[in-house]
């Protein structure tokens, strides 16, 4: 996700961001890896189809994302990135 997020950056996520609104393309979200329990990923929403989001990394050529593990359901999103520090 460099250069936007670098290793060691700390981020604050809003866990209630999608209570009254829906995920939107361009949002950065965190969610548990669909195939690796306990591993939380940070990706950008590229497209929203119904209740599911297609997520990708910024560097699409090097990213493992929805093209490999499929779309992410809305209830699997842990939160929207609020800011980094």
């Amino acid at each position, binding site marked *: *996700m*460099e250069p936007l*997020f670098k290793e060691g950056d*700390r*981020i*604050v996520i809003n866990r209630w961001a999608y209570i009254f609104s829906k995920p939107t393309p361009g949002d950065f979200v*965190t969610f548990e*890896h669909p195939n*690796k329990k306990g*591993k*939380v*990923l*940070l*990706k950008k929403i590229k497209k929203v189809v119904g209740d599911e989001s297609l997520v990708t*990394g910024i*560097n699409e*050529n*090097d*990213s*493992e994302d929805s*093209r*490999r593990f499929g779309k992410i359901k809305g209830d699997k999103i842990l939160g929207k990135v609020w800011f980094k*520090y």
Partner: protein
Amino acid sequence: MIKVSLFMIKKILGFLDKIAPPQKVYAHCDIPCGIYDPHQAQVAAHTAIRMTKMLVDLDEKDDKKADHQIVRLTKVKEEHAELVKHEVRIIWGDFFKQEHIGKNPGLHDLVFNIMKLASKVKQEINEDAANELLSKVQEFAEIFWRAKGLEPMRIKSGSSTEGEIVSHK
């Protein structure tokens, strides 16, 4: 004033991190090096061929020497056949994406064959299997370079197997 506020927020967040460490999140599932090359798999396949050939040609007049040499050659053959499997698995699992599979529908079968052949090379002293393994790995390398948008080409390996290595133009 804004600078002071930001400084204070950072200090407060830093303090909160100490009493309640934040959870780790990953922007990538593995190290995002983006560096993949089927060269190592091919070199390992060449080595497996060479070790197999040396085992076939082994002079067994001196039992002790022969035993010693069998152990050494078999060890290297095992390691390099395993290396073929490792290198191919990494490229298959980390580099290739669904769009590549669409263009190369035989890729999964090819990788499956490579895994099986590499096991056979480990289990037996079988020159045909070792040569077939290299041939399949070369085929895999050609698909890889095409997927990277590069035209593959075969060059002489220059090694004692006198075989080829797939590189690109």
